[in-house]
Every structure is written in structure tokens, then in C-alpha cells.
């Protein structure tokens, strides 16, 4: 039995933040889950995917991208079932089109959208603050700080969603999703049998033609008024300590504040407002708090989201409280926090002097070799890169070539000795950007994309390339899995876990040909000379071509063999 469904009510278990979210969802009666994997959210989908084979009443799918996953979950919730989708921060950009109008039409069953931000870009291409999506779309936002809170807020999010008939955004960060802590669990919902919802037709609600959308926008704003009252009195927003110096904080930053207040016994000096329900902003609660202190420091990672909310409240209510945070330079807008950063901000803001530990002398430690992440030994991507590089060299084209790349393990092709990654924006940009480069430059363009990324965001730019007659070579590195995030399925895979044996297979070469690409070859990158001979004519041409380098991820192959 999967460990996340084995625990009995009241049992204390050690859970990753992401596992706590899964447990919470299964206690809340989640019926339909859908996701595209992305670190730091991946373990939510991975666990739901496995657990569904033990619970007849649970459906989960890895969808081809975050927008599709959001639509799957939204439809299930429209039909009255509880649903969930989860994604990394940049995944919400992909799902944003759905998100913005979903806020208008709403849901009937509870729907939770988990979004995991990645301050410091541990495994991401940016460190956007996704909380602004709540403000942009007008959806409720919850920010857990610990695995226990992640668990509790997930359960609450489903109730809140049903009450407001809106999806609720549950926002974590890497240090919440990948923190491990003790969680006291409750009782699982009943999953003995499959449960179907019922979609009640109501085009005046579910079909946002302009006449409907205008009404639904007003409905949304009314709901936000209700939600503000709920946020104001929510027990997810709480205070401790006393004094004229105040701190407003949320998410993992609240933990650093708590430990500093404890360790240095500041409870009689500093009053702390911890916010877990942060959109709509609990404006009355904020006003009361701002009124009760003289100085306030807003401690939050990334953007000044709560800080700006506090400033707006202060201005609206004519409060003269001194608000400090990012605008005043006390805290940075970049990178994740750690205790030291918060301690320094508190010292600067409130004139607290923390005892400095004696500095240790480490000047005797020599320069140490770096350990950049690398492609695994035996990884097929390395072979593919060498096939392309050597062939371009033989053609005298290497110097003139530029290499757009994409999101996946193969982005590590940026490092020596490969160094074949020149341009990257987001998922799928290895297919869209060459269209622009081929118009704007005389370079030879060879771009790289993975199989999962190709299905996620590569199909429509490839159609664009064919129709608008762009000239580049796209190398699809088909390792038969979504390797970077933990081997999630891909529609084209032949090598698959037995649970997926009955799913149809979508052949990449057939798809590429059907889109109208004339020059297509499939190579085995481990057979170097044979592969070079196959790709040479394509890399010498001034025409759109696609090379499919097909060889399974070695770790994935081992995992499938073991099962």
C-alpha cells in the first residue's frame, strides 16, 4: 500500500510539503487530478499518479501541459467533483489563459490549483512571484509555511472553493514543497468506487461570450468582497507577541521570523502578523494591525506583494505607520531568504542588536572544485550532441551555427565540453525562436527539444515553421520519458510502466511528417557513424528538417526493468 494512504487518523508522519498536500487532498475527497510535472511541484503528481491504482474512486492523469491539466480539472469541478491541478510557477504562465477566464465562470466542486514558486531558481529559469496571479485573476490565495500547514490548507482550500464557487490557489515555494516535517493526519475520504459528477447546462454561466463575461466579471468582484470578509476573520491569519514594532510575514519567511523571535526572546517587543490567506488581502485585519504598531517590517520572499498591500491599506485609511521592507532596502527582491537575512533586516528595522557569534577563520581552506550538475554517465543526450557537433564540423558549419535549446536535462548541454545551448526562453521556445532567428539572421540554426517538451509546447510552433517556410533543424531528443522531473509518461513512449500498457502510442516521426515536415530522420545516437551519415544531408540543407534521436534515458530504463 502506498505510504500516503496507509497512515491512520491522528497518526503523526514525516512528510514532504508536497506529500502533505497529497494527503490533504485525499482526505478532502479529491476525485480528479491532472498535472504536467515541474520541480518543485513534481512529487504531488507523482504520488497521485501511483495512488490512483490503489483507489478506485481517484482519477489522475499527467496531461500534456499545464493549460490542458487546468482545463481537465476545471471541467471536473464544473461537473461537481473535487479536483486539483499542480504545477511549478512557470507552468502557471502556460495555464494563465485558462486561469483568467476560469475565475469568471468558476466551479461547483472544489478546485485547488497548487503552484510552487522557486526563489533562487534551484531548478527553474526565473523566480517569478506567482502570488500576483491571484491578484490578476481575482482568485483566493493561500500560502502555507510548513508541511503541516500545507496539509491543513489543502483541505480547507476545497471547502473555500466550494463556498465561493471559485478555484483556490495554494501557493508554496521550494522550501515549503521540499521541506520535510511532522504532520498529524486525519481520515481518508472514501475511495471504494468510482464517482461520476453531473454537468448541469447553464450557458449563461459556463460560456463567456461577451454578454456573459460582463456579468460574470461583476459576479467575480462580488465574490471577492465575500472572500475579503472570510480572509479578515480566517484562522489562517494569526498574531503573536506584543509591542509597537510589528512584522507582517507569510510562507516560509514566517518560520524564520518565528525562530528568531523565540531564540532571542522578542515576544514582548515585537508583534507578528502571520498571513496564510493572502488574497483577497485581509484589509481590515491589516488596518487593525497597522493601527496597533508604530513601525512595521514586511518579511516575504520575492516581490513586495504584501508590502504593497499594506501600503495601500495605510494610504486608504490615512495611517501614518512606518512600513519597511523591500522598498526601503531592508530586504531583497531576489533569491530565497534564510535566517541570517531576516535577522539582519530585523536588526536594521528595529535597532535590535543580536549577539554576534565569534567568526571562524576559514582562510586556510583552498579554492575547491565546483560541482556543476552534469548529464549522467552514459546519457544518450551527450551522444546526440556529439553526433550533431561532429557533423556540423565536417560540413564546416559549426562556427556559423546557433543552438536554441529547451527545458529539460539536455539544457545541461550549455556546459563544456558540449556547449551547444545558445538561447532559451521557456518550454517550446526551441521551436518558436528558430523561426525568428531564421528570418533575422544568416546563421545555421540547430535547436534541441525533449520528447515531453515537444508534446507540451512544440507542436504548434512546428506547424508555424512549416507554414511560414522557416529554415532550421530541430533535434527532438526522444529519451522516452520526462526525465528531469522523475520519469513521468510521454505519449510517444514505447518503453513504459505496465500501468500504461493499454494507452495508445503517438509516434513522433508520424506527427512531424503529418505536420508537413519533408526532411525527417530518426537516429540511434549510440551508433555514431551511422547517425552522422543520416543527419549529414539534413544539416547541409537550407530547409526545415527534424532529427529524432531516439534512445531511452538510462535511469528510466533501469527503473522500468526493476518494476
Amino acid at each position, binding site marked *: 500500500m502506498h505510504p500516503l494512504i496507509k497512515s491512520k487518523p491522528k497518526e503523526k508522519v*514525516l512528510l514532504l510539503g508536497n506529500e502533505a498536500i497529497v494527503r490533504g487532498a485525499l482526505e478532502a475527497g479529491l476525485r480528479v487530478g491532472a498535472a504536467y510535472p515541474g520541480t518543485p511541484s513534481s512529487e504531488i503528481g507523482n504520488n497521485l499518479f501511483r495512488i490512483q491504482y490503489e483507489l478506485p474512486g481517484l482519477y489522475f492523469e499527467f496531461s500534456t501541459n499545464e493549460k490542458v491539466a487546468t482545463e481537465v480539472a476545471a471541467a471536473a469541478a464544473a461537473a461537481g467533483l473535487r479536483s486539483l491541478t499542480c504545477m511549478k510557477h512557470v507552468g502557471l504562465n502556460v495555464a494563465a489563459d485558462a486561469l483568467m477566464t476560469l475565475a469568471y465562470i468558476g466551479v461547483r466542486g472544489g478546485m485547488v490549483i497548487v503552484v510552487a514558486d522557486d526563489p533562487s531558481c534551484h531548478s527553474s529559469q526565473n523566480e517569478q512571484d506567482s502570488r500576483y496571479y491571484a491578484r490578476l485573476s481575482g482568485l483566493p490565495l493561500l500560502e502555507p509555511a510548513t508541511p503541516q500547514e500545507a496539509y491543513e490548507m489543502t483541505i480547507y482550500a476545497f471547502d473555500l472553493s466550494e463556498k465561493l464557487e471559485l478555484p483556490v490557489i495554494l501557493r508554496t515555494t521550494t522550501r515549503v514543497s521540499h521541506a520535510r*516535517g511532522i504532520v498529524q493526519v486525519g481520515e481518508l475520504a472514501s475511495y471504494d468506487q468510482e464517482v461520476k459528477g453531473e454537468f448541469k447546462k447553464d450557458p449563461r454561466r459556463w460560456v463567456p461570450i461577451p454578454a456573459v463575461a460582463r456579468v460574470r466579471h461583476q459576479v467575480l468582484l462580488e465574490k471577492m468582497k465575500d472572500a475579503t470578509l472570510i480572509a479578515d476573520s480566517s484562522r489562517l491569519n494569526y498574531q503573536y507577541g506584543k509591542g509597537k514594532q510589528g512584522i507582517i510575514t507569510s510562507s516560509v519567511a514566517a518560520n*524564520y521570523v518565528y525562530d528568531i523571535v523565540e531564540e532571542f526572546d522578542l515576544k514582548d517587543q515585537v508583534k507578528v502578523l502571520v498571513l496564510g490567506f493572502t488574497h483577497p488581502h485581509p484589509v481590515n485585519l491589516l488596518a487593525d494591525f497597522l493601527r496597533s504598531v508604530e513601525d512595521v517590517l514586511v518579511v516575504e520572499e520575492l516581490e513586495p506583494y504584501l508590502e504593497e498591500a499594506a501600503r495601500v491599506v495605510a494610504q486608504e485609511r490615512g495611517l501614518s505607520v512606518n512600513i519597511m521592507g523591500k522598498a526601503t532596502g531592508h530586504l531583497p527582491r531576489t533569491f530565497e531568504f534564510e535566517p541570517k537575512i531576516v535577522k539582519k533586516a530585523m536588526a536594521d528595522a528595529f535597532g535590535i542588536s543580536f549577539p554576534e557569534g565569534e567568526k571562524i577563520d576559514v582562510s586556510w581552506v583552498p579554492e575547491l572544485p565546483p560541482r556543476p550538475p552534469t548529464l549522467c554517465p552514459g546519457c544518450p543526450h551527450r551522444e546526440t550532441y556529439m553526433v550533431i557537433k561532429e557533423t556540423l564540423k565536417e560540413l564546416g558549419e559549426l562556427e556559423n551555427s546557433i543552438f536554441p535549446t529547451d527545458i529539460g536535462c539536455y539544457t545541461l548541454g550549455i556546459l563544456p565540453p558540449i556547449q551547444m545551448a545558445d538561447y532559451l526562453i521557456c518550454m517550446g521556445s526551441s521551436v518558436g525562436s528558430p523561426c525568428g532567428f531564421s528570418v533575422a539572421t544568416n546563421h545555421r540554426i540547430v535547436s534541441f527539444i525533449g520528447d515531453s517538451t515537444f508534446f507540451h509546447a512544440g507542436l504548434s510552433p512546428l506547424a508555424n515553421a512549416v507554414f511560414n517556410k522557416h529554415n532550421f533543424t530541430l533535434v527532438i531528443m526522444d529519451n522516452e520519458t520526462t526525465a528531469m522531473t522523475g520519469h513521468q509518461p510521454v505519449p510517444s513512449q514505447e518503453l513504459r510502466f505496465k500501468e500504461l500498457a493499454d494507452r495508445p502510442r503517438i509516434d513522433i516521426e508520424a506527427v512531424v511528417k503529418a505536420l508537413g515536415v519533408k526532411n525527417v530522420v530518426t537516429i540511434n545516437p549510440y551508433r555514431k557513424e551511422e547517425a552522422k551519415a543520416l543527419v549529414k544531408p539534413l544539416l547541409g540543407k537550407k530547409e526545415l528538417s527534424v532529427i529524432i534521436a531516439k534512445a531511452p534515458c538510462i535511469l528510466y530504463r533501469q527503473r522500468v526493468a526493476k518494476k
Partner: protein
Amino acid sequence: MQKLRILTVGVGGQGILLFSQVLGRACLKADIPVVMSEVHGMAQRGGVVETNILIGGYKSPLISEGEADVLVGLEPAEVLRALPRGRKDTVIVSSTDPVIPQIVKDGLAKYPDLDPLFEKLKESFPKVYLFPGEKLAKEAGTAKALNMVALGALAGTGLVPLSKKAFLDAMKESIKEKFLEANFKAFEAGYQVTSS
């Protein structure tokens, strides 16, 4: 309750996640509050890996400069890299067997000569426990049990308020039965290093 900040460092693939999971489960069994944080994803591909383990009622999942009470190393160069996270009285528990980075094998960087650095380490900190982790793990039956040698060594210091049994019970929950005996032996070998 006594609080303890343990920083564990190593290299992707050394089993540092299992190390922290067993330690966390052992705390759970003894009803000692624990929080920890890990890095997943891209960083695991042969990169530097660390887990921050905070015992006894902390909420923060991270350990800042100067805050580590104990520094556990599965790889010696990583211990040296992490020293600024420690204090004058930080206890150091580390394997001495290096993992040479690819970049060094490619001749693009140098791996330091460790012996004089070990001497310097012993001079600089009051309690330094060094042990040949890979050798001990191999003797116990599998080189993969380096993480349990290190855990045994941490347990042997007596700094973590847990019985030996709590560790062994947590191992039973976390490790497949067929690997359990070798891992117990590895734990014991590490335990002997620091407890005797």
C-alpha cells in the same frame, strides 16, 4: 527541549536524502519535533547536495552561516566548502573518501590535497571525527551504505537525543529488507568511530 541544527553535505548520488529521512523518522519515533529541507531536481545530477535538519522545535527549514551545531560530511571537500555555516564549537563528523568531480577529471579544476587540510580541521575545531566512509561501507557489504556509516557516526557522538534503537527502527522502515543487514553493519561501523 534541547535544540540542534545539523547540516549534512555531500554529492548527488551518495544517499543523503535517505540519511535525512532515517534521521527524521527516528526523531518522529521519539516524539522529537524535526524539520528539514532538501533540494531536488537539477541539483541532484552530480552536484553539491545538502540537507538542513533542525531538531527540537525549530520552524525554519534552513541553517544560515554560523548556525550549524553539527556538520556531517559524506564527502570531505563538501565539508570544507560548508565550514562557514559552522561556529568555533561546531562538531564535525565526516567521511574522508573524496568524490572527484568530472571537472577535475577533465583537467579543468584541481581537487585539494586532503591530508594537511584534515590536520588543519582538527586544529580549528574542538571535536572532529573523521573516518574512511567508503571503506567501512564496503566492509559492511555495500559501498552504497556510506550514508548509514555517516548516520551511525552522528548517532555515536551522542549529540542527537535519540537511542540507538530509534535509529535502527527508523532504518527498518526506510530500507528494503534485503539491504537491511549490510546497512545495520554500516551504521554500527560508523557508531564505533565516534562512540569509543
